[in-house]
């Protein structure tokens, strides 16, 4: 298994922290108007395609309903998240980390290859945790890094009326402001789902070793080209 590069490790933890703050403050913001719409407008709960639960104070930042303060946490950590994502993507392309480790390979795009990776990870499957990412991992990380995380930035920017004048096409592309807001909510929960699976997978595969690798990078091999 290759070492995690310094930039991967620093980004991973800053991003994790920013996402926790964004998600929890986002739930507080959601409580201000719990109805989601498609199109450009929407204010009447009767027109909502979905009305979501009121999220309890213990899962929100701050730990009481406070839209103004939640917006402060949300919009400030959004800078950390967006700049971090841009930095990580730039580095992954420059160092070719993306092409080497994450991009799907020709043979990956088959149900057989994906099923094989899953089978190897079932009990008794004999998966080798020191090998490079398997096709399921490459696909999952690719979707999260390439779609879920960037979509959070784009849908978030599209909700801002001050940003909209700079790129009105973005709001049109997303189907209008209320569609962008709905998508922001959907992708936030998609990321939450990834977060849960990610944690379960780490816990199921030598968690201490995995976590320490994401902090220290992992053992340095004697051979130079690990």
């Amino acid at each position, binding site marked *: 298994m290759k070492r995690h590069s310094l930039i991967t490790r620093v980004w991973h933890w800053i991003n994790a*922290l920013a996402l926790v703050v964004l998600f929890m403050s986002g739930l507080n913001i959601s409580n201000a*108007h719990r109805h989601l719409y498609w199109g450009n407008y929407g204010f009447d709960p009767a027109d909502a395609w979905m009305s979501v639960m009121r999220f309890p104070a213990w899962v929100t930042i701050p730990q009481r309903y406070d839209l103004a303060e939640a917006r402060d946490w949300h919009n400030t950590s959004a800078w950390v998240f967006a700049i971090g994502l841009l930095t990580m993507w730039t580095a992954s392309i420059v160092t070719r980390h993306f092409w080497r480790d994450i991009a799907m390979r020709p043979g990956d795009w088959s149900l057989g290859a994906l099923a094989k990776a899953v089978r190897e990870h079932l009990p008794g499957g004999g998966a080798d945790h020191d090998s490079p990412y398997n096709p399921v991992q490459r696909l999952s990380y690719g979707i999260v890094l390439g779609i879920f995380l960037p979509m959070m930035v784009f849908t978030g920017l599209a909700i801002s009326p001050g940003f909209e004048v700079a790129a009105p096409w973005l709001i049109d592309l997303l189907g209008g402001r209320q569609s962008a807001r709905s998508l922001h909510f959907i992708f936030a929960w998609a990321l939450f789902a990834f977060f849960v699976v990610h944690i379960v997978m780490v816990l199921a595969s030598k968690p201490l070793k995995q976590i320490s690798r994401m902090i220290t990078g992992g053992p340095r091999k004697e051979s130079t080209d690990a």
Partner: protein
Amino acid sequence: MPDIKRRTLLAGMAAMPAAACSELAETGPAGDIFDAAEDWHRSAHRTLASRQALAPEYAPDERSPDIRGNGTLKIETAEYREHKASGFADWQLSVSGLVDNPLTLSMADLRALPQRTQITRHDCVEGWSAIAEWSGPQLSALLDKAKVRKEANFIVFRCADVLYGRDYYESVDMVDAYHPQTIIAHELNGAPLPEKNGAPLRMRIERQLGYKHAKYLTAIEAVASFEDIYDGKGGFWEDIGDYQWYAGI
């Protein structure tokens, strides 16, 4: 833009975990960072788009069936009820403060000025949006007539409504004050403004969220600073709830 120290930034970032959030937000490094971030949002928006860039305008058939009222929906004072009963015939709007030529305008005066009609989207800080047609004179026309002095940095809007025992008010900087879509609306969808939407006059500040669009407008004041006005944060929600003065995000 406040000069924020690297160490303050790092300290604030390190201090993000939820448990300590509330205390941090009110005082200390996080509060400073939040204020700085508000400036970043404004400067980023103003850098990315032209200062006069227009908010999207829609076609008549893209309007929403109604526009929700929020905040004050009805004003119970005898004075306002009388104005309302007489169709706001005697309603007056003053333009004062740092101006060479203070004005007092009647509804007829405002209707006699060149009018701008725009179908725009109203975005509430809560998250909902509505689309409607607004008409009225541009604020810039009034400011030019009143001859705003160079020392003025902000325009303050004073209102007839009282919420939670406080007078509603708002303020914008000169970029938004002179923006072509910043109008004093007296019509909504071709009819006089309904009471829930701010009759007889309300501001439209199209590139910012709904709470900036002061309703039941009585006075416009040019000021150098809003520090001495009410609690000094530049608006009703800014004072009572610590809402962001720049509401473009």
